[in-house]
């Protein structure tokens, strides 16, 4: 531990500001409150602050962030931002940054986040003052001992001097620029330790449910009346998520210049309390009721992220509690309310948060940059659907599995998740796209040879190995045939690997039937099939059945115990078909579905496709029905 006089510390900060090679940011006053912002002078620093309006999350994932710029020549990532030093981050906010690290580096490294993280020096500060709603003292009960925090330097105010803890080589290097730094005496070190204890004590509120018990308390209260009671008071304004240091969800938008060709793709904060958060292009909203959105926020923090990544996504900063106008966002009050219904036993201690060395992570993932591809075949197949054959410009095969999807990008319009419809293999891949949103309508206007962008393939598709040797019953409704065709063609290409193949396919009207020519070839390829339409307008020719797809199920011979039923269709279709299959004694273990959600990023980051604790874009879109037993939001 080091010691520096306040005078010398201010001189150090001023010298960094004057040197000009880095942006120096710190806590400043904003009227009666505090914010992180650029420093013109060390005099502006208010290290006696209690809490800032927004957390330092804004430095690593800004409110508005240019992900790429585009023009007629292509797509460019922005130049790396200038190095930053942030002075005065409290330990709870450093813990939040460590959670962000875990979240944004998990599976797919978010290079946009990583780049900012690498460029930043974190100078922490032991709080001197504690805001009224803070409860980080309670949250420290999650761990058996104090976690080791990811700071470069950490300050503690000892009157006319600061004690400085050095947390990294980066911290050591920057501190070397300061004058008159001495070693701390054992008494001073003791003083800092006491200070840390005292502040934890001060930031402890009357929380009746230990954060170790939150997970089970939430699980036990999923259907509690509390959600509706609180939800009725909720403005749905998103404040609680926007001010939260551990809310990471974002939206992505294209902004186009007046030349209609150039522009930028922007990432901006989003929140699960907002009504449109789960809305997909055809119009479905998967959490339409405010109480469901209100409940989701707490569950994500206390149950889903702990299951997914091992941390409770709350650090006890109290920002949501103090900034929610109807005063319903406070986790302490919410968990106390839930605990009134009966406590659940305290869970085990949480694992110490990982201190990730960001320098060791490669930032060349280009997670969000679409790869150029060319339309090789474009055929309008129905009034609203068009067939596309696509080749990646690098000549490489897409490398997908049946059931996976890609993010199709049209710069200036946006991105949309689209299922791949062709069997794996080959140098091109195929999609059938319905004209329902901005991207798909633009796609429909494109011609042979036009360029699009592709990210992916993403998601977990059908388990083609696991299905080998099994009898397969395909049940497709409407556009469900599109992702299913990838698997059907794969199975028919390796027909001997599979048992009986039966295909039931229904759509609204005969004119909406897709892949008519391929269907004619199915019998010769060893697949039995039945077709149906909801209705057949007069004068149209139709040889199949009339009625919903479910009516076909009793018409075929199959052994429910040794048949895998693969069911894909629009959201409403599942409830009926699953009920029909269960009536025929098909076990849940044998039913496979593919679900539609708002898969905005495709890489498990933006949060839109989440249903309960599952990211559909990662763990799905293909699921075994048995695995969705505890996912009430699935259907």
């Amino acid at each position: 531990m080091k010691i520096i006089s306040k005078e010398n510390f201010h001189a150090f900060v001023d010298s960094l500001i004057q040197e000009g090679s880095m942006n120096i940011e710190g806590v400043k006053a904003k009227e009666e409150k505090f914010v992180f912002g650029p420093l013109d002078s060390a005099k502006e620093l208010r290290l006696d602050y209690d809490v800032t309006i927004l957390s330092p999350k804004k430095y690593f994932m800004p409110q508005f962030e240019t992900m790429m710029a585009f023009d007629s020549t292509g797509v460019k990532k922005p130049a790396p931002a200038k190095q930053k030093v942030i002075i005065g981050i409290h330990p709870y906010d450093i813990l939040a940054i460590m959670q962000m690290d875990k979240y944004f580096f998990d599976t797919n490294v978010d290079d946009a986040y990583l780049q900012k993280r690498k460029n930043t020096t974190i100078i922490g500060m032991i709080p001197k003052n504690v805001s009224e709603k803070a409860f980080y003292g309670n949250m420290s009960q999650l761990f058996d001992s104090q976690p080791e925090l990811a700071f470069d330097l950490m300050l503690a105010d000892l009157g006319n001097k600061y004690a400085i803890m050095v947390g990294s080589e980066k911290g050591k290097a920057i501190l070397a620029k300061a004058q008159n730094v001495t070693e701390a005496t054992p008494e001073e070190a003791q003083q800092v330790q006491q200070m840390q204890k005292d502040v934890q004590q001060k930031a402890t509120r009357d929380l009746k449910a230990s954060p170790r018990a939150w997970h089970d308390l939430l699980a036990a209260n999923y259907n509690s009346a509390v959600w509706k009671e609180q939800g009725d008071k909720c403005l749905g304004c998103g404040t609680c998520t926007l001010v939260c240091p551990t809310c990471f969800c974002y939206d992505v938008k294209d902004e186009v210049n007046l030349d209609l060709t150039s522009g930028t793709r922007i990432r901006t904060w989003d929140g699960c309390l907002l009504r449109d958060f789960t809305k997909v292009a055809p119009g479905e909203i998967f959490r339409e009721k405010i109480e469901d959105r209100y409940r989701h926020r707490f569950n994500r923090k206390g149950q889903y992220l702990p299951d997914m990544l091992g941390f409770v996504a709350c650090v006890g900063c109290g920002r949501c509690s103090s900034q929610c106008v109807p005063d319903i966002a406070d986790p302490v009050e919410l968990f106390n309310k839930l605990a009134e219904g009966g406590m659940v036993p305290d869970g085990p201690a949480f694992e110490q948060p990982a201190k990730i060395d960001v320098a060791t992570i490669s930032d060349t993932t280009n997670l969000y940059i679409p790869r150029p591809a060319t339309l090789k075949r474009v055929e309008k197949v129905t009034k609203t659907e068009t067939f596309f054959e696509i080749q990646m410009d690098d000549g490489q095969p897409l490398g997908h599995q049946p059931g996976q999807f890609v993010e199709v990008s049209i710069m200036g319009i946006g991105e949309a998740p689209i299922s791949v419809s062709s069997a794996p293999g080959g140098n091109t891949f195929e999609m059938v796209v319905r004209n329902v949103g901005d991207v798909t309508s633009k796609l429909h206007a494109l011609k042979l040879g036009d360029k699009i962008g592709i990210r992916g393939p993403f998601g977990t598709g059908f388990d083609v190995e696991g299905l080998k040797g099994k009898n397969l019953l395909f049940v497709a409704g409407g556009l469900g045939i599109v992702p299913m065709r990838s698997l059907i063609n794969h199975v028919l290409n390796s027909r001997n690997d599979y048992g009986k193949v039966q295909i039931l396919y229904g759509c609204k009207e005969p004119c909406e039937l897709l892949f008519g020519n391929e269907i004619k070839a199915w019998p010769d390829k060893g697949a039995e099939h039945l077709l149906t339409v909801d209705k057949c307008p007069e004068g149209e020719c139709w040889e199949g059945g009339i009625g919903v797809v479910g009516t076909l199920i009793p018409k075929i011979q199959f052994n429910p115990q040794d048949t895998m039923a693969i069911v894909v269709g629009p959201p409403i279709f599942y409830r009926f078909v699953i009920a029909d299959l269960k009536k025929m004694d098909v076990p849940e273990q044998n039913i496979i579905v593919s679900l539609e959600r708002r898969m905005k990023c495709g890489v498990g980051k933006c949060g839109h496709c989440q249903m309960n604790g599952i990211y559909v874009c990662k763990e799905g879109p293909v699921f075994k029905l048995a695995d969705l037993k505890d996912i009430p939001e699935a259907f």
Partner: protein
Amino acid sequence: MTKPRVAFFDFSSCEGCQLQVVNLEEAILDVLKLIDIVEFREAMKESSTKYDIAIIEGSITRPIDVERIKKIRERASILIAMGACAHLGGVQRMGNKWTPEENKAEVYKRHPGSEITKGDANPYFAQPRHRAVDEIVKVDATIPGCPIDSNEFARILIALLQGKKLPIPDYPVCVECKKNENICVFEIGGFCMGPIARAGCGAPCPTHGGECEACRGYVDHPHTQAHNEVLKKYGLTPEQIMNRKTMYTYRYVEEAKGGE
């Protein structure tokens, strides 16, 4: 691509929204590469009856206005309502709380008995009821705000030309206010419509020390009940709540009454 012919028309308004278009300044040269402006009283002397896009500022007030907007609608393939007056009826819509006679008597009280206040003698004073444009004719697109934001005007024009959904959010102003790191208006003793008002403006009013008055109207599903409870909690009486909620948004009050 042939450039669409665009005409601006004003009805009951301050013409401030058209001024915002002029305030695009240099960018207007880029706009003119995309569209041909054939009528724009505030910026040019030419006029035309041949146009593809009609941009309307102002509320529709008198029978002669109804006739005029219908004629414009017939000529235009796309009709855009620009600004709070065209979108909601404007602040003048508060006048709908009283009868036309009461309004005239109040406004011209220093001229009792003047011909102007009597009956329908003068068509310019005939039965003024303030209506939004879409209550009279079909509106294809709305640019909300009082006044409109110049950049949003450009964004919406771009989206129209791209054939894209208009980039007008369906979340409340709080979202943008929080992103600006403002201190909540309620916290400093103010009154705010932000929690139910439609965002897209970037929350300039709370950011610069004001309060949101919902000049852009409400989000599609405003949590009005929860918002009223908040206002009550912060000390407003039901009457005060009603008064504060009618500055730009009396349209919703009238619609709720109509729906009863």
